[in-house]
C-alpha cells in the first residue's frame, strides 16, 4: 500500500464524478426528494420521525452499492483495471481510493438530507448527530464494498444493476423497516439477524429513540464495520493481477 497512490486514486474518482454533474445532482437530490415525499405522505410527524432515520441508513447504502458496482464493472471491462494491475498499485490502494472518494460523496449526500430533514421537515432526533453521520457513512462504505464484490460477478451493466434489487430488496423487507422484526416468523427473524441492513436500521432506531450512545448501538456499529471489512476483503480477492 502507498498513501500517494491511494490519494491519487481517490482524486481521480472524484474528478470522474466532477465530469458527470448529472450523477452528482441525482446522488444528492434523490434522497432529499424522497425524504420530503415521505414527510408529506405521512401527514403525521411521529411516523415520519420513526421512519426517516431508517431511510437515512438505507439511502447511502443503496446509492453507493449502485455507483460502485457500475464504476468497478467499467474499470474491469474497459481494461483500466488490467492496466492498473500491471502497475505498482496495490489492491488496497484501489479499494481505499474508492472508499475515500465515495465516502466523501456519501458524507455530502447525508449532510444535505440531514440539513433538509432537521430544518424544513422538523425531524426530531433524540440521539447525537455525530453517531447518525457515523452510521450513515458506515452504511455507505458497506454498500460500496458489496458493490465492488458483486461487480466481479457481472459481465454487463444490465447484470450489475440487477444485483441491487436481488441483494437490497429482501434486506429492506427483513430489516424491520416495514414490519417490526419481533413480529416476523421465527425463521425470518433468524435470517434478518445475519443481514447487515438489519443492524444499519437498528442503529438508526437507537439514535432516534435514545439520547445516549447505547450498548445496542455500539454492537450495531461494530457489526456494520465487520461486514464492511469482510466485504472489502472479498472485493479485494476479486481483483486479480493475472487473469485467464
Amino acid at each position, binding site marked *: 500500500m502507498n498513501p*500517494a*497512490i491511494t490519494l*491519487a*486514486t481517490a*482524486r*481521480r474518482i472524484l*474528478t*470522474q464524478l466532477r*465530469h*458527470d454533474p448529472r450523477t452528482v445532482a441525482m446522488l444528492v437530490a434523490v434522497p432529499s426528494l424522497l425524504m420530503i415525499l415521505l414527510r408529506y405522505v405521512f401527514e403525521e410527524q411521529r411516523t415520519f420521525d420513526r421512519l426517516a432515520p431508517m431511510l437515512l441508513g438505507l439511502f447511502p447504502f443503496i446509492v453507493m452499492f449502485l455507483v460502485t458496482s457500475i464504476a468497478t464493472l467499467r474499470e474491469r471491462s*474497459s*481494461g*483500466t483495471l*488490467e*492496466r*492498473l*494491475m*500491471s*502497475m*505498482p*498499485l496495490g489492491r488496497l490502494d484501489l479499494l481505499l481510493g474508492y472508499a475515500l472518494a465515495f465516502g466523501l460523496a456519501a458524507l455530502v449526500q447525508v449532510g444535505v438530507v440531514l440539513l433538509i430533514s432537521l430544518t424544513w421537515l422538523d425531524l426530531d432526533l433524540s440521539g447525537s448527530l455525530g453517531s447518525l453521520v457515523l452510521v450513515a457513512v458506515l452504511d455507505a462504505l458497506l454498500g460500496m464494498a458489496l458493490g465492488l464484490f458483486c461487480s466481479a460477478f457481472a459481465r454487463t451493466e444490465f447484470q450489475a444493476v440487477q444485483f441491487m434489487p436481488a441483494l437490497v430488496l429482501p434486506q429492506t423487507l427483513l430489516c424491520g423497516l416495514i414490519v417490526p422484526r419481533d413480529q416476523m416468523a421465527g425463521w425470518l427473524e433468524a435470517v434478518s439477524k445475519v443481514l447487515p441492513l438489519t443492524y444499519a436500521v437498528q442503529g438508526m432506531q437507537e439514535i432516534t429513540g435514545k439520547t445516549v450512545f447505547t450498548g445496542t448501538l455500539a454492537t450495531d456499529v461494530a457489526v456494520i464495520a465487520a461486514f464492511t471489512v469482510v466485504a472489502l476483503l472479498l472485493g479485494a480477492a476479486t481483483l486479480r*493481477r*493475472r*487473469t*485467464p
Partner: protein
Amino acid sequence: MMSSSPAVSVQELRVERGGREVLHGLTFDVPRGAVVGLLGPSGCGKTTVMRALVGVQLVKSGQVTVLGEDAGSPGLRDRVGYATQSPAVYADLTVAENLRYFAAVLGAPRGDVDRVIAQVGLAGARDQPVATLSGGQHNRANLAVALLGSPELLVLDEPTVGLDPVLREELWTLFRTLAGRGTTLVVSSHVMDEAARTDRLLLMREGRLLADGAPGDLRERTGTADLEQAFLHLINETAGSAA
C-alpha cells in the same frame, strides 16, 4: 543480471484460454535495445504473448523472464510499459487527467505528462475528454500512458492501427528514437508492411512461432521480394514438413 542478457526470454510458453490451448510452447529471446515485431494474422495469439510478458496472463506452463526477473514480479511494475490493443484509459477524463493519474501510480516525474503528450502528438487534445477523441487519438492517448516513467521495456499491442500514414511514420520514428536510447520494444501488428521497420521479426500463426529473424534474412531465406510473400512461403513450408 548483466545488462547484456536478453530483455525478454520466453521458454516453452503454453497458455490456455477459454478451455483451449492458444499458445503451444513458444520459445524466443528479445535482445536489449531492439525493436521486435510480433506479427501474424488476427487471432494467432499476439495479445496473449504480450499479456504473458507483462504478467497479467495466467499461463499453463513455461518460463517468461523479463529484465532478469519473472514476468509480472513486483519489481517490474514500473519498468515495463504496456499499451493494450483496445485503449485502456478513462473515457470520462481528459487526456491530461488520465496521464496525471497514471503518472502518480507509476511515481513518474512531474514533467512526464507533457513529455509523453508531445511524443504522441496530442498537445492539441490535451484537455479534451477521451470520449470525444477520434479513434487514432484515443489509441495515441493509450500509447502515451505506456511511455510514462520511461520504462526499459515497452510492450505495444497494435499501436499503429487506425492511424494515417503520416502519423504511423511519426510513431515508428519515435520507436526508433526510444530504441536508440536503450529501450527495448516489442510491437505487434497484423499488417505485414510494418514488419520491414523492425530489427527482428517474430512471425506467428495459430499459437506457434513460424519464424524468428531479421526482416532481410527472412526475405533472403525464403527467396521472396516482400514479407507478405515470405509469410506465405513459410506457411507452405511448415505445412509441407508436417505432411
